[in-house]
């Protein structure tokens, strides 16, 4: 499937009705939404916890700072994760 392009200035946030929560049984972070539970892997969790009004560029930069790597190393992965979540209507881009 085609990955939609995401603008650098887009601000990803959780879609209405989607909750980000710690699963008390495992300690992992999960997304809860109508009829669905998504257990987040570490990188998706790292990305989503930074989707608090920051732009895509800012999220990528924050992760690059955290792990002391070049932002271009992360950009494709972050975009792919966000595109997947957007396609499933779990995040909104404003």
């Amino acid at each position, binding site marked *: 499937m085609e990955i939609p392009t995401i603008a650098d200035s887009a601000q990803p946030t959780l879609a209405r009705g989607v*909750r980000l929560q710690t699963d008390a*049984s495992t300690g992992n972070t999960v997304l809860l939404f109508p009829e669905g539970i998504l257990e987040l892997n570490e990188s998706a969790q790292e990305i989503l916890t930074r989707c608090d009004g920051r732009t895509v560029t800012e999220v990528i930069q924050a992760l690059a700072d955290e792990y002391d790597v070049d932002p271009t190393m992360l950009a494709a992965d972050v975009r792919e994760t966000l595109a997947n979540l957007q396609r499933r209507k779990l995040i909104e881009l404003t």
Partner: protein
Amino acid sequence: MTAPRPYALLAEITYRCPLHCPYCSNATQTRNDQELTTNEWVRVIREAAALGVLQIGFSGGEPLVRRDLPDLVRAAREANLYTNLITSGIPIEDGRVSALRDAGLDSVQLSFQSDKTDLADEIAGARAHQHKLEAAAKIRAAGIPLSLNFVIHRRNIDRLPELIELAESLQAERVELANVQFYGWAFLNRAALLPTREQVIRAREIAMAAQARLAGKIDIFYVLPDYYETRPKPCLAGWGQRYLTVNPIGDVLPCPTASSAIPDLRFENVRTRSLDWIWRESESFNRFRGTEWMPEPCQTCPQREIDFGGCRCQAALLTGNAANTDPVCELSPNRARVDAALRELNSLGDNALDWTYRVNPKVVTVNEPAVAARR
């Protein structure tokens, strides 16, 4: 064997319903014990959360007929559960939606029978459609995420494009186009409800095209008509693995249709046992857990941990033995039974058969004097 942790609880809080849809998956016969009280449900909700449950669906029957629904939603939110209301939208007087929102309701799944009032009301056996449109508007106005649920069958499958348009015009975030599955009343009405092969092929194309067109806007979930498949659905993601259901009288079921489909299975009740014990230890939850119970061809099948042998209820209803391979599977020695039903239906041409409307069971409600009527 060791029980995994469950993820979701389906709380069927009442069998009462103002609609009479012939495709209802509720049992055609139910025990008329007293419905669980508010306090009993609150205890069940807390026990479920302690077991690891993350999501609760309030269903029925029609959950809105229970006046204490906001209290149950609040209890579920306090237990950190994601709360879904699965409803016909009736009765939804003014103030009801905001009370549910204020209680913390996360999401509403509103059922529709058609986009056209006359057909919708004919299917529901009640003047319901206009009220549902009003309910959708109220839910939207309250800012609660809205999913539209359509059960698809022979009489409405040709209106799939219009059903999707209705979801767009009501600004739903999510649409479930679920081909009818044959349990309870739907099994009784199978011949009237099963779509033709031609209808199914067209519907699938329409659903796929809509999925692509509305990607990122409306999440479209299409449930396949499993009689037309060659491999069974991975029912429940495995028996006793992720889901549990508590019915209106407190019986705990691995699957909501198990009580009617599998008569030789005895279910435990939350009035006499803890949910934790029932989930881990009960015979009903352990009977088909894992792969040891499986007969051939499942036992040596590379798909056994992908489809889990299909649906136990379907095996029971179509072969008389819940431990058989789901006869939808092309490898099942009983596949001929499904093919016979399909052949018979497809030979009917355009002559749709009559159906029997769902009637409400005689349930003893919490507000009425309890009649001791244990079977």
